[in-house]
């Protein structure tokens, strides 16, 4: 600490006890890198002998750092516990001052957390209560968003129209590249998978039906929504989480501006409106992917493939896919903004919020897709 001595005389400790006084003598170099005596021997000598005074002396101490202070700090605490007074007066001035500093503020014993044991039952109870609170909180958020949308459509919401347009652009045009890549690959994969089965029956042409129906009914909307959950949903959670930790959201609230109207509604609206548009584009790109495989690998003529695709599609199918996409957009927007607003006020909190936003979005998308599959089947849509 004062003058580091990396190597030096071996540190030694000797102690004797006479007439209610324990005297310990330290010598050598007490620095990090040396093999230091442990305090246990001296501490147990204090606990068993219960001296009235513990005197520490130095005999040719050639160097010291925090390790010596740590050693003496433990000895001092042991001495005080048995009612003995530690006497540091034989130590170098710097050591004495640091020991005084270390014991200047008594430990807040009620602050200590280690040693608190919880039973499994208690843990389950705590988790249940916490899950109930979270559920209630999510419902309250949903209620606020519905009210916010009400104000928005009545033209009473406070938000910046420029922000809204930027968000539209970011969630729409900005996503075209990644949406193209993912959906063209999905169209190609579906065509490959279908062809490998249908070719065996000489029904290769039905690859067009398979790709068209799968893409337009479900896959385009699902894949685009998953891409948007990683792209925009995560970005919303991170942005709002950082705003939360910078007290920017508090600043909005204290100005009387609802963060739901100012931040949440524009983002949810951007995703809800842009996702169906992106899905129309994804439908086209997915079909092109399938057609490419059919044309180059299966030898089906492009004209025939497109005619078959056209005959497989119906307005009902297209509208069903767009309806699903709209709801997925709503879910991704809500999950991202909710997690962002509820994020912890730290870097780790923002990271957690972003992860939770993406995980929640994907779970919501897939659950909704499952529910739609059953409902659409049951109602013959």
């Amino acid at each position, binding site marked *: *600490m*004062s*003058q*580091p001595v990396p190597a030096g005389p071996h540190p030694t400790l000797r102690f004797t006890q006479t007439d209610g006084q324990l005297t310990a003598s330290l010598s050598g170099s007490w620095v*990090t*890198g040396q093999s230091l005596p442990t305090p246990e021997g001296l501490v147990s000598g204090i606990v068993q002998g219960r001296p009235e005074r513990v005197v520490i002396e130095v005999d040719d101490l050639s160097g010291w*750092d*925090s*390790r010596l*202070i*740590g050693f003496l*700090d*433990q000895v001092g605490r042991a001495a005080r516990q048995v009612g003995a007074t530690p006497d540091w007066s034989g130590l170098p*001035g*710097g*050591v004495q*001052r*640091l020991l005084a*500093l*270390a*014991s*200047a*503020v008594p*430990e*807040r*014993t009620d*602050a*200590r*957390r*280690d040693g608190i044991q919880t039973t499994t039952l208690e843990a389950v109870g705590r988790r249940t209560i916490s899950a109930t609170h979270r559920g209630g909180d999510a419902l309250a958020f949903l209620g606020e968003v519905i009210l916010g949308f009400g104000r928005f459509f009545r033209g009473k919401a406070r938000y910046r129209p420029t922000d809204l347009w930027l968000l539209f652009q970011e969630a729409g045009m900005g996503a075209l590249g990644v949406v193209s890549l993912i959906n063209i690959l999905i169209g190609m994969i579906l065509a490959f998978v279908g062809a490998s089965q249908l070719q065996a029956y000489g029904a290769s042409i039905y690859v067009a039906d398979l790709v068209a129906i799968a893409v337009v009914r479900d896959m385009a909307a699902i894949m685009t929504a998953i891409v948007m959950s990683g792209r925009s949903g995560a970005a919303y959670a991170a942005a709002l989480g950082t705003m939360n930790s910078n007290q920017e959201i508090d600043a909005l609230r204290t100005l009387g501006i609802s963060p739901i109207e100012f931040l949440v509604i524009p983002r949810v609206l951007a995703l809800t409106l842009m996702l169906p548009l992106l899905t129309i584009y994804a439908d086209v790109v997915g079909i092109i992917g399938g057609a490419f495989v059919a044309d180059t690998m299966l030898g089906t003529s492009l004209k025939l493939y497109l005619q078959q695709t056209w005959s497989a599609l119906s307005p009902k199918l297209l509208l069903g896919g767009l309806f699903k996409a709209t709801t997925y957009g709503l879910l991704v927007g809500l999950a991202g903004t909710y997690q962002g607003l509820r994020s*912890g*006020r*730290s*870097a*780790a*909190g923002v*990271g957690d919020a972003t992860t939770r936003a993406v995980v929640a979005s994907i779970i919501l998308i897939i659950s909704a897709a499952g529910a739609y599959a059953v409902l659409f089947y049951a109602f013959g849509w």
Partner: protein
Amino acid sequence: MAFGSYVLMRDLTFDVNRGDVFVIMGGSGSGKSTLLRHMIGLLEPAAGSIWYGDVNFTAADPGERERFLRRIGILYQTGGLWSSMTLAENIALPLQEFTDLSKREISELVSLKLALVGLRGFEEYYPSEISGGMQKRAGLARAMALDPEFLFFDEPSAGLDPISSRRLDDLILELRESLGATIVVVTHELDSIFTIGTNSVFLDPESRTMIASGPPTALRDHSQDPRVRRFLHRGEEA
């Protein structure tokens, strides 16, 4: 000091003596924190060099610089504690990375460092669970983890109440006395400047250079420069 073609400060030449509490002072936006960031290698000077003893820190190769940085402890303006780690983990990290100490020895040292800043018992708390003043003190405990020879403090009293601020000043003085460390402080808190500073440099954003150096009390009482006198007398002409 420059950002691209924009020169923030030029012609800064000063010495920090071993054992000094050296104050970098100046008004808001004068580049105090930027100067500190240059001194600890977070920014590179556009021209000139920074020396520690006979080591040219600016020209040092990355390995040498890394070894040297272990002799430096830094308390950042907002504490700079890693939010995903407890206070104990924050302080333990440099000890785990740069020493051969056992888990138990590290835990004892962590407890000692927290005791030195009055936070014994808060080992398992996360930075977000304690107050701003406590975060500053925990940041100081982490800065001291490796028993540094040089301690850098960026606005240590910013955002603290007068009592916490005074306690931190006392702690800085106590550490200098006990550890013999050389301390560099960026601050514009006059009380702190006069309480702890033994030497200083005054940066002026208008002339983009240092316009005074020396012990803060001497500058307050004897500086010929009206800008320095005004600053050190809270805006009133001495």
